[in-house]
């Protein structure tokens, strides 16, 4: 699963995570929605490449260390080998107009994938916590475009805001 989807999706790590969510959560039920959110949020706060951190976290959640190592190897090795191959043959590929045309088509699809990915990730939380969404999304845009804060700083501020603005426990639930 990790080898198949983490190495074949254009549009960056988050787009790939959205595809993996569809496969491992919606279709196969390997992890629950809460575990997915935990793994995704923490992978964004881990150094390095977020996608590999997500795959490692999901592997660890399912099968502890064996799952983590297998998921990390499966998600990172094939695309690394492909990258080395493309590096070797880069000049020939880069000079091909038809290759470039196909690539532009794939990138146009990647734009759509990133847009839909944002919605897939945000939708449950927009429904569950609309007030948080109304605050978190505009603040993120303002901090990123206006103040040029780094993504990790914005995510740390979001985490801090969440800690200070807890979810209301459901009736009968222990806080």
């Amino acid at each position, binding site marked *: 699963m990790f080898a198949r989807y983490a190495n*074949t*999706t254009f549009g*960056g790590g*988050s787009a790939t995570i959205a*595809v993996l969510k569809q496969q491992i959560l919606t279709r196969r039920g390997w992890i629950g929605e809460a575990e997915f959110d935990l*793994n*995704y*949020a*923490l992978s*964004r*706060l881990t*150094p*390095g*490449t*977020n996608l590999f*951190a997500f795959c*490692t*976290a999901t592997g*660890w959640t399912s099968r502890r260390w064996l799952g983590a190592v297998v998921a990390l*190897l499966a998600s990172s*090795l094939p*695309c*690394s080998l*492909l*990258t080395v191959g*493309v590096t*070797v043959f880069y000049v020939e590929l*880069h000079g091909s*107009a*038809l290759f*470039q*045309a*196909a690539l*532009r*088509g*794939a*990138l*146009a699809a990647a*734009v*759509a994938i*990133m*847009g839909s*990915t*944002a*919605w897939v990730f*945000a939708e449950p939380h927009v429904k*569950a916590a609309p007030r*948080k969404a109304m605050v*978190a*999304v505009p603040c*993120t845009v303002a901090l990123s475009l206006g103040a*040029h804060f780094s993504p990790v700083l*914005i*995510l740390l501020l*979001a*985490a801090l805001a*969440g*800690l200070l603005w*807890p*979810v209301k426990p459901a009736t009968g639930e222990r806080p």
Partner: protein
Amino acid sequence: MTKFLLVLWILVKSTFTSFAGLASLPEIRDELVEQRHWLTDDDLNQAVVITRTTPGPVGVYVVSVGYMADAVPGAVAGWIAMAAPSLLVVLLVGYFGKRAEHPRVRAMLQCVVLASAALLVLAAIPIGREALDGPLTIAITAVALPLLIMKRVNTLWIIGAAAALSFVGAVAGVAHVRQTDRPRLAEQHPATQVSSTDRSHGMGLPSGQDLSLAPP
């Protein structure tokens, strides 16, 4: 062996101190281009273009950089440097996993996921500016977006169909075909500036970068 260890150390140091795809680029450039002269800006530029040419995360550019610096051993060093930081997430999941039901931790996750979604949309903007250069590519995005959201169509089909359409369009003369002479990211947008642009868009995709897709 010494060069392998040096490349490994430089790349590991860079990836362990960065939190997004291309965020390690300035440090890698400083070490490999400015200080040791093992690579040129054009090489770095090429490595970034390659990761956009291949599926997977943009962070894989580290493997390409390693290969350019020290052939196959360098690529191995790049892979180790790219993959190793991911293991740190196990510590975080181990700690927060036990507290996942706590209202404050749940709220923290909600806020981080919402902020991530907003950052993702911001990251799509520069890619859109580069990729949506004609009616065909705009149509591809316009059709793919509702299909993905409402029908949850597998992205592999969407990407394959989009690439095939664009390819056929280019062959038939419908799509705009252009040849670029060589990548120019490092010349027009020095790698040292990438971190600042990277910050503004959230996903390690500098705004306005020339990834061989911009008009010549």
